């Protein structure tokens, strides 16, 4: 139910994975209802999604005007004037199970080992606007990183639509005006379109966006409102011309009442301002965005509203919510498309029979709740790991009581550079290190076991590693050239 990125990703994945198993897939969407299409930046996991579908990278990149992404640059978060890159990769190799950054913290207490960034190939390459695919040789700095794409999500949906339709997905054009429930079981029986047609199914995937036509309106699955932690509730988006070097990274710049994104694609740059309506008016938010663009606008700014949170039941009866109908977390860490992917992966892992087992549904809901909650804590970290108090929004965060899990995580980091681990969550320890350190949370201590090594040996090893990173980046081509000279070139090729 619903096209857009969520609808077509789901349809394409189900068409691929359920091929030959006797499952008919129909997607209903209305050309009149616009798609939201934010979330143009992705995470490395999307490559596995595309690979499973048998989609070749150059074809995908051409079709979606995609560029490569090595991470996200955060500006003005810890303090105005600060900047750091959260890369897809680790900082240096672990030593006896102790992450490298502990050595760096030790060396920092003794002298100047440079930035931790200097030990990260993807950070240094991103800063230099360079890109290459990870080398196949394990153990080298230029092989130990991940990458994702920055693309046009509407083009991605269109690409997947062609893919899905070619594999038997039936697309129905029409606007749903009514939903009929089964009187006895309370399941969704069919949807009625404006022209009177009815669409029946055994399983409905609700990709209808924020309104949650089936999961919320028809089945009454409630919504956990997380605004007390993440109060941003509006966005205004506008595309601009490309200007300057093509960065292999997305930029997120903190503002007084929210933050601004900048996502460079081949043919244009996506921009937007996510903000909290308690702290700024829509007009001022738009004015702030327009004033901070670095190139001419290609269209009028478009406004969006949302409430951060998640569905209490992502899956209820015979309806599974995927995409914005399942919840919303601001795209500060490019998680929107990833949460769609999680929803699809878990749906396939727990694909139902007609009996709709309550245990399976409960497990789906448990897994998705964990995915959402762990992303939420990570996003909130960005707002609270800061010295900013220059506006009501930043003062609001200063006064905020954090979830216990996040409080403990920050305390453990500040005390000794310890990252509280978990297994089932999107953001692994290097991501937490990147943001905490990048936003000025410098640990007071480090793992005392690094003192078991000779300081001079640590310093020499660190110097070698920095030199390796610098040399590897020197040998890395310019990002724009790399795309232009490859079969991935689309908008860039004709420029």
């Amino acid at each position, binding site marked *: 139910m619903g096209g857009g990125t969520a609808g077509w990703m789901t349809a394409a994945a189900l068409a691929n994975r359920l091929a030959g198993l006797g499952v008919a897939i129909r997607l209903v969407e209305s050309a009149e209802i616009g798609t939201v299409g934010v979330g143009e930046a992705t995470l490395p996991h999307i490559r596995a999604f595309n690979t499973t579908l048998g989609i070749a990278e150059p074809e995908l990149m051409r079709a979606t005007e995609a560029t490569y992404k090595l991470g996200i640059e955060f500006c003005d978060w810890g303090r105005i004037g600060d900047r750091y890159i959260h890369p897809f990769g680790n900082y240096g190799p672990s030593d*006896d199970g102790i992450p490298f950054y502990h050595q760096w913290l030790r060396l920092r207490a003794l002298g100047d080992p440079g930035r931790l960034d200097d030990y990260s190939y993807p950070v240094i390459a991103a800063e230099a606007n360079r890109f290459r695919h990870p080398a196949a040789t394990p153990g080298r700095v230029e092989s130990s990183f991940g990458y994702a794409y920055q693309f046009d999500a509407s083009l991605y949906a269109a690409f997947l639509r062609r893919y899905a339709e070619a594999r038997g997905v039936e697309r129905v054009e029409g606007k749903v005006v009514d939903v009929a429930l089964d009187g006895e079981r309370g399941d969704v029986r069919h949807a009625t379109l404006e022209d009177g047609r009815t669409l029946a199914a055994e399983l409905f995937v609700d990709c209808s966006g924020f309104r949650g036509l089936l999961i919320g309106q028809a089945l009454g699955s409630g919504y956990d409102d997380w605004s007390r932690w993440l109060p941003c509730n509006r966005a205004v988006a506008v595309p601009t011309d490309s200007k300057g070097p093509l960065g292999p990274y997305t930029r997120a710049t903190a503002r007084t009442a929210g933050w601004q994104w900048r996502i460079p694609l081949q043919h244009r740059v996506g921009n937007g301002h996510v903000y909290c309506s308690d702290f700024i008016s829509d007009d001022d938010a738009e004015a702030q965005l327009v004033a901070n663009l670095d190139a001419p606008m290609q269209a009028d700014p478009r406004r969006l509203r949302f409430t951060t949170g998640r569905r209490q039941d992502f899956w209820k009866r015979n309806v599974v919510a995927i995409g914005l109908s399942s919840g919303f977390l601001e795209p500060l860490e490019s998680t929107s498309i990833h949460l769609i992917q999680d929803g699809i992966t878990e749906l396939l892992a727990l694909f139902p029979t007609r009996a709709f087992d309550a*245990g399976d549904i409960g497990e789906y809901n448990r897994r998705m709740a964990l995915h959402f909650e762990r992303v939420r804590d990570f996003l909130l970290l960005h707002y609270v790991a800061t010295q900013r108090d220059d506006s009501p929004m930043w003062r609001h965060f200063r006064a905020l009581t954090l979830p216990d899990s996040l409080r*403990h995580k920050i305390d453990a980091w500040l*005390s000794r550079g310890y990252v509280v681990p978990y297994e089932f969550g999107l953001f692994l320890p290097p991501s937490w290190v990147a943001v905490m350190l990048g936003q000025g949370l410098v640990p007071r201590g480090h793992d005392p*076991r690094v003192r*078991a090594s000779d300081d001079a040996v640590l310093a020499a090893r660190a110097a070698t590693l920095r030199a390796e990173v610098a040399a590897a980046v020197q040998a890395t081509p310019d990002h724009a050239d790399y795309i232009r000279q490859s079969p991935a070139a689309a908008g860039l090729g004709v420029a």
Partner: protein
Amino acid sequence: MAVRRILVCGDGLAAQMALTALARQVAPDTAILWVRAGDQRDGDLLYGSVTGPSAYGFNLAAGVDERQLVLGSDAAFSWGTRYAAWGAGRSWMQAFALPFPVIDGVVFHQYLARTGAGGIDPYVAGLQAARRGVFVHPPREAGGQHPLARAEYGYQVDPADYAALFAAARPADRVEVVEGAFAGAEVAGGRIAGIRLDDGRMVTADLYIDASGPAAVLGSGAPDGRRIGMAVRNEAGADEAPLRTVTATALGWQSATPLKGRTLHASVYAPDRPDEGALGRRVEATLGRRAQPWVGNCVAIGQAAGVVEPLTPAPMLLLERDIERLLSLIPVTDDCAVEAAEYNRRFADDYDHADLFQRAFFAVDGLPDGPYWDAARAEQVPEKLARKISLFGNRGLLVAYDLEPFHPEDWIILHLGMGRRPRRYDRLADRADKAQVAQFLTGMAREIERAVETLPPARVYRQQLEQFLRKAAS
């Protein structure tokens, strides 16, 4: 202030493993002191006689490499444990294994369910090797293509002998042995101010590690689970089979663990109805864990933190994890608040997750009646375990929680071994051609069978390895 003096209190396996790991990993400017407290020789029997595959890495990080183990202990290689007569004629081999292959995005056991093959035994290389009593180190090279590449092994050990191995492996001068015996602890403001010795002297440190067994001489708040008794004796024997056997009896269970040149026999029972026929040293304990093993400047590890029935490698896994957790949290501040909170959180998770695995052994029908079994069954099935069992039963789905000590492979082998069969399989397994799946499975089983046919008995392999190592050392 950084920790510069660490004092370990105890005289058994936990103390020896902790001392050796500390000696290897903490900076040389930190003193390591050892105060013998109590006598854990009998209590240590409750650590059981098997380690998991994690022992290899733990030992290496503590400076005990496998060559030392082969040359300097009675330990034997172990493919796992065979459980027999576990209710309703149930018997299975709980072998260690690396993850099974994932084919076309679908996990291996779903194909088994699809073909109705039932058990997983023919596809677990270690299990097949154990059946024949043979052993080699699993070949990891050749891109994992060798039929035994996914086999995994642990060790069969005598806790006292294993403790001696650790004691011998650290540099003699690295640990300062405090002469005299523990008499008591001075406590002030919720922290340990010092350890009083029997001659009246006081020893102080920045961090105290309580490795004194269930008595937990530095701790408080004992566990309150069910009680078990255990009797253990040695028998000579040159069998050295690379597996432990555990057999359910009316009174509890009995195990036989082949070691180098002998076999360790154990009986576990309910103390109010002991196994009178069992010979050897006897020990009793209350199972369960402390709520707060780390309080102030004192950390409890091993049985001082929680006592676990040695039905699986869980007691050894948890002891390893206690020490690893402690090493990653050697305090950097005086109040140890962050370290204690994190240690206690992870301890509770590890212990409770290991407990899920052990409790699963009692969540089946057909087990004997009697005090031991009644007490074990009377414990409520935790919701987390109920979910694991029910979803596996439904569709072979593995429910997993953060950083469990037992891995998905362990759970698959356990579920299937105990006779749980998914009512239906993952539909995605139908993507593959049925004949091809059957052919693949047959081929895999045949390759494993062929590979294990040619292997030497575990005893012979060990003897040859020992000879080789002695020659290399001389």
